[in-house]
């Protein structure tokens, strides 16, 4: 699973296709494939050429999958930027740089428990498809929209997968119970990888620390540069530092990061 050619570059790929799943808010964006390889959990920064001066920032997206034909992102429309992206036309170009961040690291021979919340499924599509032993993967997926919105069905047959719909407050409580049980049961048997909205990651982190599980979580902090320069995306760590999520992460050991009291970032987060 270790890629050797992971030198990031800044490209101007053309959009090959845009498809929608379940609703117009769930977008699969296919672009000309870059020359680089990547590690699942790494991401790219994307900024369509036509944005001109507004919005100023690019938007970070996990690399969902890369084949010899294309690079694919899986994007949910949650605000202005993603809404503009969802209306792009094939043939138009993007500014794109990556692969960025550290990505998930794991031993393919060791069992994996993957915990994905909503759009947190994106990096695991490529991961599971490329995994040499998909039978060693346990996959728990929590989602709020209909399952047809997510590429859940694409996960290899052999992956041991469950999905849980969360519509009501009751659903969320029972999902958290399932999460707790799975984490406790799995602790000591392999590595746990988690990606999803911050409230979800907070819960995963809590149970992981309590049960001493070897859990790695991928953060979705707001980002401006993606390359470690602006210090806008930092996360607090247990050593009392602020580390750039874009370069030191987005994947951190669950017990290494601190979620600040301040939950402004989370409050408006619509995707799970």
């Amino acid at each position, binding site marked *: 699973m270790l890629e050797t050619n992971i030198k990031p570059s800044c490209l101007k790929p053309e959009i090959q296709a845009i498809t929608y799943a379940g609703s117009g808010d769930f977008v699969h964006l296919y672009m000309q494939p870059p020359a680089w390889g990547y590690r699942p959990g790494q991401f790219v920064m994307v*900024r369509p050429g036509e944005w001109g*001066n*507004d919005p*100023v920032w690019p938007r970070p997206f996990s690399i969902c999958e890369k084949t010899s034909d294309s690079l694919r992102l899986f994007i949910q429309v949650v605000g202005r930027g993603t809404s503009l992206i969802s209306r792009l036309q094939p043939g138009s170009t993007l500014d794109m740089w990556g692969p960025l961040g550290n990505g998930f690291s794991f031993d393919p021979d060791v069992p994996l428990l993957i915990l994905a919340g909503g759009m947190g499924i994106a990096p695991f599509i490529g991961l599971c498809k490329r995994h040499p032993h998909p039978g060693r993967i346990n996959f728990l997926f929590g989602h709020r929209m209909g399952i047809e919105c997510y590429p859940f069905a694409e996960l290899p047959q052999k992956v041991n997968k469950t999905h849980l719909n969360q519509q009501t407050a009751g659903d969320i409580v029972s999902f958290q119970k399932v999460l707790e049980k799975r984490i406790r049961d799995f602790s000591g048997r392999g590595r746990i990888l988690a990606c999803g909205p911050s409230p979800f990651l907070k819960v995963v982190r809590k149970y992981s620390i309590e049960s001493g599980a070897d859990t790695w979580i991928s953060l979705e902090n707001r980002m*401006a540069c993606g390359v470690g320069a602006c210090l806008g995306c930092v996360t607090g760590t247990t050593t009392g*530092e602020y580390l750039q999520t874009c370069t030191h992460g987005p994947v951190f050991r669950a017990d290494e990061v601190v979620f*600040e009291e301040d939950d402004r970032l989370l*409050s408006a987060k619509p995707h799970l």
Partner: protein
Amino acid sequence: MDLGVTLGALRLKNPIMTASGTFGYGLEFTSYGRLEELGAIVVKGLSLQPRKGNPMPRIAETPCGMLNAIGLQNIGVEKFLQEKLPRLPWKETPVVVNLYAQKAEEFADLAAVLGSEPGVGALEVNISCPNVRQGGLQFGQNPDAAVRVVEMVKKNAGQKPVIVKLSPNVADIKVIAGAVESAGADIISLINTIGGMAVDIRTRKPCLANAFGGLSGPAIKPVALKMVYEVCSTVKIPVIGLGGITSARDILEFILVGASAVQIGTATFTRPDKVFTLVNELRELVTQLEIEDWARFRGSLET
């Protein structure tokens, strides 16, 4: 045409510098371009001791711009000199160290540390950070305090050119520009960010943990251009213009109103190779407009 410019003792192979805080310590960008091709590299603001910076969230997007309240997180000047500077191509491209301190004495100490470092091309004294409780605007909005800082830095900076970076958060930029010139500044750079705020009507909280932040990006270009013009009409020392620059055309606009060089800040976030590609774009535009030398174009605005 040769794109090179001279700002007193500071010689740049082209007028394009990076803006402090938007280009890290420079090394973050080696995958995206050759640092040797830039006019100068201005690194993140450094203080005597490392600083943790402000709590999160620290950045927010705004129309054609952004707010930041990083709070000058940095690794401290010593670590920079040991771990970063040696890896920068300072022989080919001047490395400018942006200084932050809370007291005039600390600025002087920083200057003393840096004044004898061969790898340091110039000092940029940041008396204009709106995101820290102490040491930012209290100097940048007060001519007397600014003069004191500049004089003390100059005393310790040896041969290094001293750039003083001004804040736009003043009633009349000409006053402070005149003051720092008279205090011995070799170069003036402006503008730093404009104080601003963003709030979230759902959470009823500010979008930044620090409540206030500094506004940068294309939104502020008209404000920057006016202030650079005013300062260039006031002082005799060279001026570095910045604020919202995203294109070769923008660069020429700042030079047209009198700037000798420019810095690229927020635009770097739109594409990490931006500052590198701007060098070529500038070369092309200068050719297209048949600009023959900077001396004749600079400040040639007809009013």
